[in-house]
Each structure stands twice: as structure tokens, then as C-alpha cells.
């Protein structure tokens, strides 16, 4: 799957009509758009249904942070406490992917298509129970998809950012944050499953100074300066 050797990417013939807006996801998107292997996916990806899209991302969410949900069950790796699927971040994730790569309309659809195509490569018979081949993979097979992405120049950046993004979304306040009021609509799932006590303007956590090292040497210097 390795299209290019080494870390230095070759010039990519991205159309000048494109208006590039972001860095992290854009890097991934540009690499994909100009990849001879992956570029054709863009056309077929647009035919994806909403069900396929949500199945795919729920399968991905369960992979990064599993829970008791059906997607986690299907991959054979579950958790008794809520995971990424229950964290209510699927829409935030899809919105983030779409909003930040405007020159690839519905970049989320492209990402889903990549995951599903690689899933079919890893396990061609993963057809049930979901419409998404990726969501039907076992946990180790999903790792196999990530491994292919990690070793494919056009997908390395995406392989790096997706786990980061999904983990951060799950454990942050993303599923309960209202950007209009800039406040929460409830307790974020990630706070509950990580035992986070929540935001605060102050905490009773002051433990004093190590060996009473309260006097900065700088103050001593100042005293010397003014002596």
C-alpha cells in the first residue's frame, strides 16, 4: 500500500480552485484527494447513505473507546461503562470532518469510504450485522485497518489524527457543550467514565512548598541588587 517512500511527500496536484482552510485534517484530505489509489474513492463515496455513514463512525468510535453498545459488541471488545458511542459525539465528529475540509464536500463520507474499503481488504466477508464493513470487523481487524493507514503515505496523517480526535471528543465536554450559550447541557459522558470532577474556578489542592522553598532565589537576587 505504500505509494511513496520516505517522509518527504511529493508535490500534490491539488486544484488551485480549492480553498484550503485547515491544517491537520486538510493534510489528510489533500493526500487522499491526490492519491492514485484513493482518489477514485471520492466518486463512489458520495453514494454513501446516512445509515452507512453513521454505522461506519459508530464502528470507529467503539474501536477507540468501547462501551456496552452494539458496535462494541460486534467488534468483540466491550466495556461495562459508556464509551465513545454513548458520548454523543458522532455528530460532532462528522460535523468537524465536514466543516474543516470544505474543498472535499462531505469529507466525512470520504473517510468512511476509506475505512470501509480497507475493511473489505482486511476481511472480505465482514458483511453483518451493520451496513458498514468497517463496523463489522473484529477489534484486531480494525487494528489491521489502522496499520495499513499508518504504512500508507496518503493516509498516515489521517491515521494520526483520527484516534487523537475521537479520544479527545469522548473524554472532553464535546457531547454536552452548547457553542451558543458556551455552557453545558448536561454532564458529559467522558467526565463520568473518567471520574473527572468537572470544571471549577478553584480547588482545595494547595499542598505547600517543597521543603518550604517559598522564597524564590529571584527575590534574594533582588534584595542583593538593592542592597
Amino acid at each position, binding site marked *: 500500500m505504500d505509494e511513496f517512500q520516505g517522509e518527504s511527500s511529493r508535490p500534490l496536484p491539488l486544484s488551485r480552485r480549492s480553498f484550503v482552510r485547515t491544517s491537520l485534517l486538510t493534510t489528510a484530505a489533500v493526500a487522499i484527494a491526490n492519491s492514485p489509489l484513493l482518489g477514485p474513492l471520492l466518486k463512489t463515496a458520495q453514494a454513501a447513505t446516512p445509515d452507512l455513514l453513521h454505522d461506519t463512525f459508530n464502528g470507529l468510535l467503539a474501536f477507540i473507546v468501547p462501551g456496552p453498545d452494539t458496535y462494541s459488541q460486534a467488534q468483540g471488545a466491550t466495556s461495562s461503562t459508556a464509551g465513545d458511542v454513548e458520548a454523543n459525539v458522532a455528530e460532532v465528529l462528522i460535523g468537524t470532518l465536514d466543516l474543516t475540509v470544505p474543498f472535499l464536500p462531505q469529507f466525512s463520507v470520504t473517510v468512511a469510504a476509506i475505512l470501509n474499503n480497507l475493511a473489505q481488504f482486511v476481511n472480505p466477508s465482514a458483511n453483518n450485522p451493520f451496513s458498514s464493513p468497517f463496523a463489522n470487523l473484529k477489534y484486531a481487524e480494525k487494528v489491521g485497518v489502522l496499520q495499513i493507514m499508518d504504512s500508507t503515505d496518503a493516509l498516515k496523517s489521517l491515521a494520526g489524527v483520527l484516534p487523537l480526535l475521537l479520544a479527545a471528543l469522548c473524554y472532553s465536554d464535546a457531547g454536552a457543550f452548547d457553542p451558543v450559550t458556551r455552557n453545558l447541557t448536561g454532564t458529559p459522558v467522558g467526565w463520568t467514565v*473518567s471520574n473527572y470532577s468537572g470544571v471549577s474556578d478553584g480547588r482545595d489542592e*494547595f499542598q505547600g512548598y517543597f521543603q518550604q522553598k517559598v522564597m524564590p532565589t529571584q527575590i534574594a537576587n533582588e534584595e542583593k541588587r538593592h542592597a
Partner: protein
Amino acid sequence: MRDVIVVGAGGGGAVVAKELAGRGLDVLLLEAGARFANPETDWTHFESDANNPYLGYFRFGPADRSKAEWVREIPQSMLFVQLAGVGGSTNHYQGNSPRAMPGAFVGYDGADRQAYDTDHLFPFPYRDLIPYYEWVEATLPVQSAPMGKKEEVFFQGAQMLGLPLQRGKDITQAAFRPQENAILQPQGTAGKTSDPHKVSFPAAKGCTFCGHCSQGCFEPLSAPINLKAKRSTSVSYIPMALTADRWSRDGKSITLVADAFAICVNTDGVSARGITWRIGSTGETFTEEADVIILACGTVENPRLWLNSGLPNSNGWVGRGLTDHYVDVVTGVMPFDVATTRGPGSNGRIDYPGYGMLEVVGDTPGLRAGLCAFSDAGVPGFYDNGLPGGSYGADTVGRLIGNDLKEAMSNVDRLLNIDIFTDDDVEFQNNVGLSTNYPPDEHGPVPRIEIFQRKRSARTIRNREFLAQKAVDLLRALGAKKIHRINKPPFVIHSHNTMRMGLSASDSILDSICEARAIKRLFIADNSALANGIGGPNPTLTTQALATRTAEKIFQQYFGGEAWVSREAPVASTDATITQAFVQSGTD
């Protein structure tokens, strides 16, 4: 015509602007991002609001959050963390203000002098910078940090490794210490109550131990802006620059313009003459002239602006030599609470001269989980992605995802996180240039950042592995139940050297006073001017000391003034004169 135009109001630009305003010069300070004049309403404690890399108020983008961030081409897995807005990246930093390793400077004669990047030393001796360190330390001010629980535990671990306590500010040996940091020490109820009704100023002063350094500090509530706990330049140097006529006998307050993105440095071929900038909200462009131009736009935008302005690059080193401290993280799952999310961001450190440093770090759960999942070393138990990096007894190396992540994050306050900052070499290959793949944006061709993670120098790799082993040893000594080494791709929270000063004209852009070798009257005053990665410590204090030195050199060379640092006492940014000026103006 101005005396001076400074481009960039971050960790360095704000310093040089304040110092020259204090001397009575007419200073125009341009900032591309938001003004952030009122952190109590501008910021919240929520990660989604602050830290979303695309839409959060701490992205690298325009003040108007309905507009997209500014693009950079990054052709690899990399997180380049840099903030726009008045205060720059000091708005989310943890205030740590250590001095540099003396071995990073020319003239160092310690027994370990060969342990450093000896090909790229600072072009003046370490002792020459000490008066400027002292000046900045008194201005911010920098003080010895108090402990939270994780610091107490971390110091126990350091002692178990047999390390001594470092008592002075200058790094002389491998040792641990409370951070010297730019966060006001807690007084009154600060740090002693979790009751939100009891942590407002003046009952609480200094750090309230809220645990939200990464979302920006606006504590204690109701405190005047220059008395906020964390000394981001937005609450320290900028208020001083805006009130220079009040605290300095000869001072002249600066003119600050936010939402102003510099797009060209204008020259006559010999000297810098002015700056052209674009206002984001209107699209208008403006040009002003000045006797001296100072760039402080950061390690990415400085070389971009230089190259987009058509300035000379005869030795090819513009944008080259990027160092990032080759960051890694080792996390221990402890059998007891260490208050990861509660209290200081990072108030404890271990310095290993010639290798780098370790810091104990706390943060909010989304950031921590994301960083645990951000690796270049595959998935533990499945594949390692071919990245060098030993376990040294760690239970896993690589991404924490799935139930490994779930288990580690099941009690975030039991995670003892040790960040690794490597003394990494200046290497020509790691660079910021102009993208030929992306179309220009409204400010011209966009920057391209590239770090060759798998081709770092042998010394750099050795240093990181040494530090990783020490981190694992410390966590094991403390009884960690599990230890995870993440082995990160470039996670750039410290960046330096892309417009470096140096001894030789063949591999540097700036001379020994940070003036461009190719263009007179053009200076650089941020991390990009540093000669090297200063040996691994957090760079902000050294940049601020160097910016103070640069301001003094400019005043002497181009305005006929005298040096002041060695003969005057600095005014602290917390001085009552500054507080009163803001309170009286009704802007606070």
C-alpha cells in the same frame, strides 16, 4: 513614521514592545489574532470552547470564530500547537520559566561541554544573559511554584532515583526542583477551597489551583487584569506596554492593533523601512514606516513573512533548523489519587543537563485522552510501526486506544504524566518553508512544516531514549500499576530556531544582537531567534530575556540611548500603578 513596529504580541513581541515603550519610543504593536482584552468573558474552562483545534478560541486563526483557522501544510502526522491572539502561546502555557542549560552557550567550560549541540551554540556566554533573566523574572514575576498532589509524588520519585534538589535558578547538575514559574503564588483562599463563591479577588489572590491552564487563566475572578494568576503576556507585558506613560518616567504607551496580519516587510534593499498588514474583519491593507522593524510572529510565520516579502536567503537557512524538543510522554497509572486534573498544570521538573528535562503534567480529561491516543508507534500488542523506542519496562509503547485507553482513563486523577523534552539538535532538514501544494490564502503563500521524525540525529534519539528510561524508572519506583510510553509523532508545543542567531554567517540569519545579517534595522524577538533548543528547558523565559536584551541593543544602536538593565530596578507587572491605570480607565 513610528520609531518601532513590532509584529506579533505573543511571548516575545510583547516584551520588546514594553521595554522600548518604557524608554519613550513610539511603538506600534500588530497582532494577527484576537485582542483577548477581557479573559473573564473571552474564555471559559471548557475544552470544546478553548482547545478544539479548528474552532476553539485557542486555535491559530482569526478572532472571528465563524471564519476558518489559518492554513499550514503539514505533510505528516504532527500536532503543531501555536496560538494566535494577544498573548500568543503564553495564553495556554503552564507558566514554566526555567533558565536555559548553560551548555547551550558559547564559552561554557563545564566537564560536560561536549554533551550539547556544540555546532549551534548561542553566540554569547550564558553569564551575559543572567541580568536579563533577572529583569524578566522580576517583571513577570517568576516565583518558586507550590505543590499539588502530583508534584509531591513526583518529588518523592525523584528522590527515589537519588536525585538532589536544585536550589538555585541556574542549572548546574542533574536535579529535581519545584518549577520556577510565572504564576502568582496562592494567597488568601486561593488553593484552599473548592467553593466557587470564595475564590474571587481579593479574598483569593494568585493561583486558585483550578486546573485549567490549558484553557487560559482568568483567575481569580474579579482580579484586575494585571493581577491574574498566570503571567501570560496578555496580562503582564501588554498591560505594561499600554500604560508605559504611567509606570516609566520617560515612557510612552504603545499603539496596539489586533486582527492585523502582517503580509510584507518593506525594505530599500539595505534596511527595513516598514510593514504592510491586512485587517481581517474588513480586508483593508495598511502600510506604516518605522526606524526599526521587529518580527515576533512565531517560528512558522516569521520565515513565511520573510520569504513572502522576498527578503534574502543567501545561505538557505531561513526557516531551517527547527527544533521541537522531540517530545514524548510516559504515563503511569497510580494506585492512588495524584489529582491530575486538579491544581497546577506542571509545578515540578527534573533537569538532565546534556539530555533535556522531565516535567510532571496535569490537564483536563479530553486533552489527556487525546494525547494518549496520539502516537507514531502503532498499537501495543499488534504492531510498532517501525518507530525506534524502547519500553524500558513500560507495559505498553504506542497508541492507547480501546480498552487499554478505557482502563487508563477510568480514573483520570490517578494518571501521573511525565512529559519528555529532549535536548535535540538543530538540523537543516527540519524546516518551515512555503507550500507549493496549497493555494495561497489572503496573506500570500502558506507555510509548510516538516520534521523528519525517523531521521533525527543520533544524539537527539539517544537523549530521548535516556529520558524515557528515567521516566519509566521514576514511575516504577513510585509503584505505578501500569506504565504507558506513547512514543509520539512530532507534538510541537515548543518550537525554535527557524530564524536563528548564531556564531557563523553560514548557518544563521541573525547576528549576536538578533539583527538580521542581510537587512539592517530588522530584528527578530521570539523563539525563532534562539540559537538552539536551549538544552531542553521550556523556552519562554529565555526568549523573553533575549527579547529584553534585543530591546536594549536596539535602543543603544539606533536611538542613541543607554543600557538600563544593569543600572535600574525593573517595575513588576503587578505594580499598583498599572492596576490603577486599568481600573481608572474602566477597561478592566
